[in-house]
């Protein structure tokens, strides 16, 4: 049962775990974060461009305010770069390629910052030098002009003008390409003057120096600027962005793959769910059907119970009837056995009494003949008319008859016969009286009863089974009369004596002991017969239990005994040893507990 519940639970947990994992895998791509990262990258790019622009402008205008702006931009750029490196929108740690490119970019931009600072510092100085030189140009050019021969001054003036213009152009133009022109102009100025004066040469030299310094400064400035601008931050950031985008696309693809799996898995789960649902539905249907049957059965249950109850009660009454019949048949069987014994007991004295009577009658006929012969002889002898011959004949006839009859012997025989007959009749009368006592039909059912007398009667009834075979030893105590149903108790004694007699195979003894007890009497019937095993002893009072061969006993005798004793509120105990004998002990109370109303009716009828 536990196992049956555990297995689906584990399966459900696993299914939910897989679902959670798949969901998490699809959720790993955070588009907001992605957008923030992209924005961050753009911001960095923009700021970088802004910075470049500013540096580019710086060259054009060496305005004082631009430095503060640059500082501000640098700060913002630094913050954004930090955000790239660490924090929620950081790109670090996503994959190696990206890390490498990010490192490269960060290194580059760091170097650019350094270049920027360097440029910043240098630029001020260069600018200062430039400005100074530019300021010195008019002065020196004037000095050149002044030093130059007058012929030449006209030729020099446009050159100087051009020079000034070129120099200005150089200094202002972001990417000037007129350094050659300037050098040409200087050369032209020099060349136009043969045998220049010392002053002119010196002034020329100074001017030349100024121009060279301006060109140099400008070149250095341009170099530094281009070096700064030439840092490949944009490209590298692009690479970073590309790498990130590639990673992101990979992530998205991954997530998509998981999403497909998730969809499949969800579909699978749905299928399983649907299957379970169908199964549930089906079992519900079966349950419903069963429930319907149950309800149906419930409705019919009462009828069935009623029918069953009717069957059972009819079976019970059948059983009771057949039990009553069996008890009756057992009674009849024991009655039959008793009758057999009693019939023999009665028929024997009856046989000889009847026969004797018949013999007496025939003998009496002879005696009557003798008497009449003697009477006739006597009459003839006393008669005067009779002749001697007649008298002699009569006398000889009488004598002949007397000899034939032999009165002395016959009288003795007759006495004996009559005595025997009398004895037989007394025996019959005794038996009949015992039978009457035994059945007690002429007595009330609940009567005062002398137990000892009942035992005597029962012993007389079964005399036929005991005679010359079993010695009965009576040891009767002085018993009070007890209230009971005498005929039933007689049956108890008869059954027990019959059993005892049957337990004794050849010759033996039955010991009957009675004694008064407090509020009752006890009767012990002990035989030295075959005894019985414990198994048999425990079952002897069960109805239908018998150890006799089939057809010999109904197995009801002792159960009837038990019932009768129970009805009388008494007890019956049995002890037995195989081969030694058995002992039945009956205890009966003096008074019956309840006056049995239904028992008085037949007693009245009997009275």
């Amino acid at each position, binding site marked *: 049962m536990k196992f049956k519940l555990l297995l689906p639970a584990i399966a459900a947990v696993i299914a939910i775990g897989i679902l959670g994992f798949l969901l998490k895998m699809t959720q790993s791509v955070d588009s907001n974060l992605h957008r923030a990262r992209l924005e961050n990258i753009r911001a960095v790019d923009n700021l970088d461009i802004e910075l470049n622009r500013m540096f580019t402008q710086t060259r054009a205008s060496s305005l004082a305010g631009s430095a503060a702006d640059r500082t501000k931009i640098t700060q913002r750029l630094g913050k954004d770069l930090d955000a790239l490196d660490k924090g929620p929108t950081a790109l670090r740690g996503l994959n190696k390629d990206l890390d490498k490119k990010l490192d490269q970019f960060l290194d580059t931009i760091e170097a650019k910052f350094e270049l920027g600072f360097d440029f910043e510092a240098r630029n001020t100085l260069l600018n200062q030098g430039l400005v100074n030189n530019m300021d010195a140009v008019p002065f020196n050019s004037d000095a050149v002009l002044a030093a130059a021969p007058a012929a030449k001054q006209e030729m020099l003036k446009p050159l100087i003008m051009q020079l000034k213009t070129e120099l200005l152009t150089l200094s202002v133009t972001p990417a000037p390409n007129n350094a050659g022109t300037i050098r040409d102009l200087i050369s032209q100025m020099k060349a136009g003057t043969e045998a220049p004066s010392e002053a002119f040469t010196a002034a020329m030299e100074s001017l030349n120096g100024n121009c060279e310094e301006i060109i140099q400064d400008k070149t250095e400035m341009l170099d530094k600027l281009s070096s700064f601008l030439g840092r490949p931050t944009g490209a590298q950031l692009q690479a970073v962005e590309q790498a990130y985008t590639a990673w992101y696309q990979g992530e998205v693809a991954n997530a998509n793959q998981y999403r497909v799996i998730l969809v499949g898995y969800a579909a699978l789960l749905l299928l399983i769910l649907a299957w379970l649902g169908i199964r549930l539905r089906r079992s519900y249907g079966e349950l419903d059907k069963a429930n319907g049957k149950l309800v149906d059965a419930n409705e019919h249950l009462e009828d069935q119970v009623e029918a069953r109850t009717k069957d059972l009660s009819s079976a019970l009454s059948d059983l009771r009837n057949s039990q009553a019949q069996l008890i009756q048949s057992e009674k009849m069987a024991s009655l039959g056995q008793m009758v057999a014994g009693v*019939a023999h007991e009665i028929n024997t004295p009856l*046989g000889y*009494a009847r*026969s004797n009577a018949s*013999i007496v009658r025939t003998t009496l006929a002879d005696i009557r003949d003798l008497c009449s012969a003697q009477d006739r002889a006597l009459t003839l002898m006393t008669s005067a008319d009779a002749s001697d011959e007649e008298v002699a004949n009569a006398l000889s006839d009488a004598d002949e008859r007397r000899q034939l009859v032999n009165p002395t012997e016959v009288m003795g025989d007759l006495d004996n*016969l009559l005595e025997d007959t009398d*004895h037989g009749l007394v025996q019959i009368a005794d038996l009949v009286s015992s039978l009457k006592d035994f059945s007690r039909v002429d007595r009330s059912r609940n009567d005062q009863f002398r137990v000892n007398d009942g035992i005597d009667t029962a012993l007389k009834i079964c005399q036929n089974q005991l005679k010359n075979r079993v010695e009965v030893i009576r040891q009767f105590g002085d018993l009070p009369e007890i209230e009971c149903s005498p005929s039933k108790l007689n049956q108890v004694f008869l059954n027990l004596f019959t059993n005892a007699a049957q337990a004794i195979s050849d010759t033996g003894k039955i010991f009957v002991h009675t004694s008064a007890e407090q509020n009752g009497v006890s009767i012990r019937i002990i035989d030295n017969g075959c005894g019985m095993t414990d198994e048999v002893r425990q079952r002897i009072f069960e109805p239908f239990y018998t150890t006799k061969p089939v057809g010999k006993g109904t197995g009801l005798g002792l159960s009837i005994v038990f019932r009768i004793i129970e009805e009388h509120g008494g007890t019956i105990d049995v002890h037995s040893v195989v081969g030694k004998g058995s002992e039945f002990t009956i205890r009966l109370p003096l008074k019956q507990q309840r006056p049995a109303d239904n028992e008085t009716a037949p007693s009245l009828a009997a009275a």
Partner: protein
Amino acid sequence: MTASTTAKARILFVDDEPRILTTMRMLFRSQYEVFFAESGQKALDLLKVQAVDVIVSDQRMPGMTGIELLRTARDLNPNAMRILLTGYSDLNAIIGSINEGEIFRFVNKPWSNEDLSVTVARAVAAARTSAALSAATADNIGAPAGPQPGVLVLDDDPSVPTKVQSILGSDYRVFGATTMEEAVNLMERERIGVVLSDTRVQDHPVISLIGTLKQHHPELVSVILTDRADAGQAIELINQGQIYRFITKPIHDNQCKITVNSALKQHERLSQNPELHKRYEVEATTTPPPTATTGTGKFLDRIRSLRSWVKRA
């Protein structure tokens, strides 16, 4: 009745009630030489030294029952006729007395002196006439003359003859009949030695048929095979039908075979020694068959007419 021989016939009375013996002495002392025993054992002791013609015994006696006594007495003194005199006996005792004791009569207590005298006188006559013979012929039964006598099975159930035939084997001639008329028809046609019959056929008791058969054809041997055993009927059958054996259904193969064999031997013995017939004489039927229809009467006539045929055999 005692005139035929010089010595008085000897009769042994056995009863555990001495007064019965007294009465018997009174009744029979003038005619017979009477002997008495108060128990079976004493009777046997006496029989060992004194042969008798008739034994009259009580059934219920302590120590040894009348049947036990008569069975032993039969071996000890086979010529003696055996009469059971008893106040009450259950069916088993009666069947035992028939099969084991082969008794002549069954007399109930109380008895009538006249009837008892007649019965005893008949027994004496039977014993006297067969006395010289029995010893000599007991083991000297010759081979059956002519064909083997048949066994007639009379039973309501037509399967019984088949069953009997199958038990006995094909050496025996078994004829089946389900009515008495059929039985008589068969007996007119066939030589029958043994009749194996139920107590009632077609709701008529067979006692009259068996009694008449025995009266007129003493060499016929009757065996009762029934499941409706009844003490009174059994007594009638022995007294009025001299049935040889009484066996109960269901049929036990061995018992049936032994019984039929023994009955056939008895038939041979009776056929060859008509002097023995007296030993199996039946009482005259005291009451005619209650439902003595014309049919039954006709049967009896026909049975009497069988005589000539039997004589031929």
